């Protein structure tokens, strides 16, 4: 609190004493990209001077004027920067001043300030020198392109694809093999079942950099294989930030649409949380809820039913536009008369959007038992419309304090997100299909998902003078929740003679409450020692971390029953819970509980992960850099949960786990990276590492989670299936080999070719359960060993090679081709063989689930900094990817390639280009997001299909 007050005070101080200007900058070693600590900065012809701190940063307050800066550091050539113009109340930035090692002749390097400002290549240096193959985007570049949020910035990183407008994956490997961290600390996403964090919540002006590592070094967490994306927030903003932005987006299919579907929610929906409108009725958790047969009085039963929200139907409403607004501010100030600095950032963002999908299809298809029939037949087809309303409120704050050799920072983040969804479907179930009874039903589905995330980070960095030792420690607790209160499904079954609820057909009206809360606490430290090996810079790094995660999960289920026959003269959802139909009247409706005590659909899981590592970066030969390291992780996951058998009272044969270990392994993850400099611009890299992908809490449970719209059921892997699954889901261990040639050119241009090979021991994939034919059920299983090899081509090129006139145009791209293979288990092979079609030859290998055979990212950009223009056209596609492994009657399901073509245009206007207007078009090709059942010589049939439509966005932001 005191720090905060100090920050506020400091903010005012800088405003008041604005008759001086500030010069700020950072100094790095030209060759290694390391920061230079303790370099002398002197303003020529004055007595003003300072030394760089542990970030290589310096700050000087001077009267307005034009100066020359002299920089000197022992062992390096002196540097002079001329024509440094300082204006009252403003900051002149001189970032990444590159000191060159002193050779025989001690010449002074002289550059002008203007030249410094236009080179934007620091990240490229990091990339060139980094032990891991990485890519990223710096704050400087983000400022240049005018991207508003991290998600827009990240799509400019080669090899990164965006999913659903907010999630990121790398090299076409799915979410399971990707990971995101915030300030180098594990953070659970708002969606607890994903490894990756949503990126649309971070305003770019508070991000220092986004870095994607494509291979593992010992100082990173071992549980990623495709890519590790880290978002680093700013601690000490270079300049004062006070930014306001508003934007809106228009989708002709979704907005100002009178057919939009919604439902009556609570009064605080617009703040991203439910006000209790969807709360679980009192007493509903009891073992014996009031029903006509529970012994409760008639009045008690009626009162209890009336506690349930009577809204069961979706309503046609009018949709408005998407809207978002953001405020961000930040600055750094010198504390007192010292060179100590205080930095602060704060941002508040608010987003709301409407989505309306008028063509949503979910299909369940089967093969025929006759091997001559190669076509697929439907079991169920659901077609309808769906409206979604999303509210997101986000706040991020950070305070940082640094002396020359120490730095402390505290950041806090809070995200609150509420999404309500209303849908109407026509369900056509074909009685001729296997396991189906045949019916037509019309359903109304109402859902609400409320998520929150609160994260803190306390971080300290200490440099022990010029000794080369650096210590960094971090403590970071995160608290997150994801609740789905009152999911309602009401499906009237239509027969030739009447319309009513038929349990064996469209089902009785049901409601579900789901809740999840998770705690994630990380403590870690890293120690780095810089030293000389054979006269060259070398770096020894070691550290340890401990992560504790704990999750509580629960599903409660209720359905409507009728105490007698039904009669619906006016069969609409709004009629159902009217007084005339509630027990003891009319259709004599009451609610029955589907919940055992203890609840088989509730679990508690926790993880303790202790890691230690050591890594050494050195040059064994001239031009050859080696980074050799090993990491050990001791990972213990415990589970408390039980299966249905146990929950319904069979304590002998039922399974019950009481905080028992479901994963317990000590793993060593060696990594070796070699970088051979063919020339100043060319590197040859080779890397080997071992990584891991672990089952999630949900995957290692007895939970059976039904999707209320599609009725598809996810089964935890602890369930055994005799002959096909033993109930023991194990981790996937991966050996990675990478080879890369890279060429760096001036102005951040780059060209690289990589080849990689990955071997997967026990990969986990989602498998259709063939024994269950009435409902569609899936289970994560280890599916036999896998491997993949691929090539990746990456480039970022200015168009000046065509003509100098095109030098403002840039072309960037990343193309990956991957051949993946799973060696099937005998069970899977036999099951496929039994359903071999006439003329088909079933192989005992197949593509890996989640691995796209190719990924193409391409971007054409135009940047004219002087005129304030930035424009980009981005294309991304991921090849047909196996989504769910089919068995027997059920064929494999593949994601259809989604051709994402997006355009953005940004124009900065006004004095100092303080105002920025941006215009965006998303999904220019108007493609659909789809996945299909595929079988030998069969026309692919829809599993999921949704039309996101084309949208146009307009945004305005202003820097004060």
């Amino acid at each position: 609190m005191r720090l905060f007050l100090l920050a506020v005070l400091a903010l005012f101080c800088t405003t008041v004493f604005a008759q001086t200007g500030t010069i700020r900058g950072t100094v790095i070693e030209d060759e290694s990209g390391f920061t230079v600590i303790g370099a002398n900065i002197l303003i020529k012809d004055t007595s003003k001077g300072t030394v760089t701190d542990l970030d290589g940063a310096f700050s000087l307050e001077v009267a307005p004027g034009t100066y020359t800066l002299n920089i000197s550091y022992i062992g390096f050539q002196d540097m002079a920067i001329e024509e440094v113009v300082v204006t009252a109340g403003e900051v002149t930035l001189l970032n990444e001043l590159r000191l060159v090692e002193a050779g025989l002749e001690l010449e002074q390097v002289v550059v002008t300030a203007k030249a410094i400002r236009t080179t934007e290549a620091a990240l490229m240096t990091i990339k060139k020198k980094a032990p891991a193959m990485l890519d990223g985007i710096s704050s400087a570049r983000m400022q240049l392109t005018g991207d508003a949020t991290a998600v827009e910035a990240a799509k400019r990183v080669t090899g990164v694809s965006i999913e659903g407008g907010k999630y990121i994956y790398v090299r076409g490997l799915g979410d399971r093999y990707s990971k995101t961290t915030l300030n180098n600390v594990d953070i659970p996403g708002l969606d607890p079942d994903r490894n990756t964090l949503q990126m649309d919540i971070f305003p770019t002006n508070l991000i220092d950099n986004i870095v994607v590592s494509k291979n593992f070094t010992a100082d990173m967490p071992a549980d990623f294989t495709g890519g590790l994306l880290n978002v680093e927030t700013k601690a000490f903003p270079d300049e004062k930030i006070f930014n306001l932005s508003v934007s809106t987006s228009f989708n002709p299919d979704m907005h100002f649409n009178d057919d939009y579907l919604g439902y009556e929610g609570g009064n605080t929906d617009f703040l991203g949380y439910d006000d209790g409108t969807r709360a679980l009725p009192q007493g509903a958790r009891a073992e014996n809820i009031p029903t006509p047969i529970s012994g409760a009085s008639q009045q008690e039963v009626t009162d209890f039913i009336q506690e349930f929200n009577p809204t069961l139907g979706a309503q046609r409403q009018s949709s408005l536009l998407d809207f978002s607004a953001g405020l961000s501010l930040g600055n750094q100030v010198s504390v007192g008369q010292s060179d100590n600095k205080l930095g602060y950032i704060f941002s508040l963002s608010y987003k709301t959007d409407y989505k309306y999908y008028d063509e949503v299809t979910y299909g369940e298809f089967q093969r025929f038992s006759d091997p001559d029939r190669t076509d697929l037949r439907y079991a169920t087809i659901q077609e309808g419309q769906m409206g979604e309303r999303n509210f997101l409120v986000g706040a991020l704050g950070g305070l940082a304090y640094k002396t020359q050799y120490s730095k402390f920072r505290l950041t806090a983040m809070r995200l609150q997100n509420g999404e309500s969804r209303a849908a109407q479907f026509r369900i056509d179930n074909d009685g001729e299909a296997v396991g189906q009874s045949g019916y037509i039903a019309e359903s109304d589905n109402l859902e609400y998902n409320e998520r929150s995330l609160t994260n803190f980070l306390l971080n300290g960095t200490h440099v022990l003078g010029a000794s080369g030792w650096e210590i960094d420690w971090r403590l970071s607790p995160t608290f997150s929740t994801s609740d789905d209160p009152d999911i309602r499904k009401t499906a009237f079954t239509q027969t030739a003679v009447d319309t009513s609820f038929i349990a064996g057909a469209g089902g009785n009206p049901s409601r579900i409450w789901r809740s999840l809360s998770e705690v994630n606490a990380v403590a870690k430290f890293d120690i780095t020692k810089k030293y000389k090996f054979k006269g060259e810079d070398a770096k020894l790094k070691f550290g340890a971390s401990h992560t504790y995660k704990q999750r509580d999960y629960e599903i409660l289920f209720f359905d409507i029953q009728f105490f007698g026959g039904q009669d619906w003269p006016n069969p609409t959802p709004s009629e159902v819970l009217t007084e005339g139909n509630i027990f003891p009247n009319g259709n004599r409706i009451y609610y029955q509980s589907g919940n055992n005590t203890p609840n088989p659909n509730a679990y508690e899981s926790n993880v303790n992960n202790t890691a230690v590592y050591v890594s050494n970066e050195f040059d064994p030969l001239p031009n050859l850099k080696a980074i050799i390291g090993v990491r050990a992780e001791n990972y213990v996951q415990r589970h408390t949960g039980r299966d249905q058998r146990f929950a319904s009272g069979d304590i002998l044969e039922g399974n019950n786990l009481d905080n028992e270990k479901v994963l317990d392994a000590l793993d060593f993850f060696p990594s070796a990276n070699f970088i051979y400099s063919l020339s100043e611009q060319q590197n040859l890299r080779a890397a080997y590492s071992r990584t891991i992908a672990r089952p999630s809490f949900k995957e290692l449970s007895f939970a059976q989670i039904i999707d209320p719209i599609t009725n598809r059921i996810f089964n935890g892997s602890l369930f055994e299936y005799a002959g096909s699954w033993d109930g023991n889901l194990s981790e996937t261990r991966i050996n990675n080999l990478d080879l890369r040639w890279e060429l760096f050119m001036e102005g951040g241009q780059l060209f690289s070719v990589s080849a990689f090979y990955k071997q997967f021991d026990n990969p986990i994939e989602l498998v259709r359960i063939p024994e269950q034919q009435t409902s569609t059920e899936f289970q994560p299983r280890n599916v036999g060993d896998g491997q993949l090899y691929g090539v990746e081509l990456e480039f970022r090129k200015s168009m000046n090679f065509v003509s100098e006139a095109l030098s403002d145009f840039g072309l960037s791209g990343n193309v990956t081709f991957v051949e993946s293979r799973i060696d099937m288990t005998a069970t899977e092979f036999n099951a496929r063989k039994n359903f071999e079609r006439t003329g088909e030859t079933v192989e005992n290998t197949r593509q890996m689930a989640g691995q796209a055979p190719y990924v193409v990212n391409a971007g054409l950009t135009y940047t004219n900094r002087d005129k304030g223009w930035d424009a980009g056209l981005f294309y991304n596609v991921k090849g047909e990817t196996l989504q769910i492994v089919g068995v027997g009657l059920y064929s494999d399901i593949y994601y259809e390639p989604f051709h994402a073509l997006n355009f953005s245009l940004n124009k900065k206007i006004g004095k100092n280009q303080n105002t920025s207007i941006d215009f965006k078009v998303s999904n220019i090709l108007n493609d659909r997001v789809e996945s299909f059942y595929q079988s030998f010589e069969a026309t692919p049939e829809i599993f999921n299909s949704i039309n996101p439509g084309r949208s146009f966005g307009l945004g305005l932001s202003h820097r004060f």
Partner: protein
Amino acid sequence: MNFKSLVFLLGAFVLFATSCDDEGAMFDAPMVSAPSAVANVEAGATGQSVVFTVSIDADLTASYQASGTGVTVANASGTVDGSSVTINYDAGTTAGAASITLTVTDSEGQSDEATAVINIGAEESTVLLTSNISENTTWTADKTYILGGRITVLDGVTLTIEPGTVIKGQAGTGANATALLVARGGMLMAEGTAELPIIFTSVADEITGEDVAAGNFGSPNLDSDVNGLWGGIIVLGKAPISASNNNGDLSEVQIEGIPTSDANGLYGGNEPGDNSGVIRYISIRHGGTNIGAGNEINGLTLGGVGNGTTIEHVEVVANQDDGVEWFGGTVNVSNVVVWNAGDDAIDTDQSWAGTLDNFVVVTPTGHCFELDGPEGSLEAGHTIQNGSIIASTADRVSEDLINVDDNSIVALKNLFFTGIMEGQKINRVTAAGVTFEGIEFDVDAATLADYVNGAVPAGVTAGTSPKADVSVLGWTWAAQAGGLDNL
């Protein structure tokens, strides 16, 4: 340190030492207390326990002695560990008051005692079942059996149910549903009689064994259309089924209504003569609760049941899903009443190769007959004969009359449909494997074509003569309630 604080410290030390002396002079006497409530146990009940609360001076140890009156104490003596002593006992066989007295003596020789009062009641008349039946068991008519979950008769085990026994399922839906499941290799010997049928119903039903013994087979409190109060009966066998999940020459799948996580739900095999026991004179009521949408429990589910099994005289009343559903198998079934089914009345799948003979169907909400074809390579058919069907009454209407698939294999013989309403039809007459013989619709002959989707087959005519012999169905609740009067 100055003088004042030295004096203070010294004083504090003296005070401390003195107080220690006081403690050492006397130890607290032990205290024992018995539960205030009288424990009610059943005569002959074993493995009971009572917990006494004790307190012992922290510096001492203690032992206990327990003696029982009217009960047999298992742990009559021992040392006291902690603040409670648990005494295990078996109740005696005579009803009445009994007691256990606990005496605790500490190492200083001080003691205390307390007496717990136990009321031994008559043997419990209801038995709550929560675990699978893993050894041969008999359920007797003098008790009511409560299904507390999905109770499975395991492979190799026989469950015998005496005539006149009442079994009740607890309420619940989804994972919480209750049912009786006979796994492959398990045997159900449920042999009721026309005078003493076996009743499967809900805990909400107030029917008792005495009612049954007195000849009152109907529910005293539940209407005949109240459904979904519990699950149902599922019998699984090793007879061939025509399912898609072929695993070499063995075809086995998971039965509808049982989560795939329960391996006891698998059925099918290659033993046509498989014997799952005898089911005779049983009435199944108010069940069929759902497991998930489209996934319910039928009144009587027969999955891969072989023709070594005897099934006759079965009544299903007010089941939320189908009345009787066959999934393959070879079993023959006769003398059946399905009354007020919430979905289909008679449902066949996966090439059931048997005969349904002499039956009555009254107003299901779904199809009267939902007859599907083979799903796998096995192609076999069944015969449905000598039945009377009431397709609608004043307040209940069936979805249609006969529903067959294009690949169904069924011989339909001697069926009488009455109560036919506009819109109710035979859905298909073109299926090559379906034959119609002696099918009579209680409609005006001129309008017969309105009730058939397609050309009226020669075997379908207008007529008014019931085909089922209802005289053997007089024991059913449907008959007692007058539901079969006009047939």
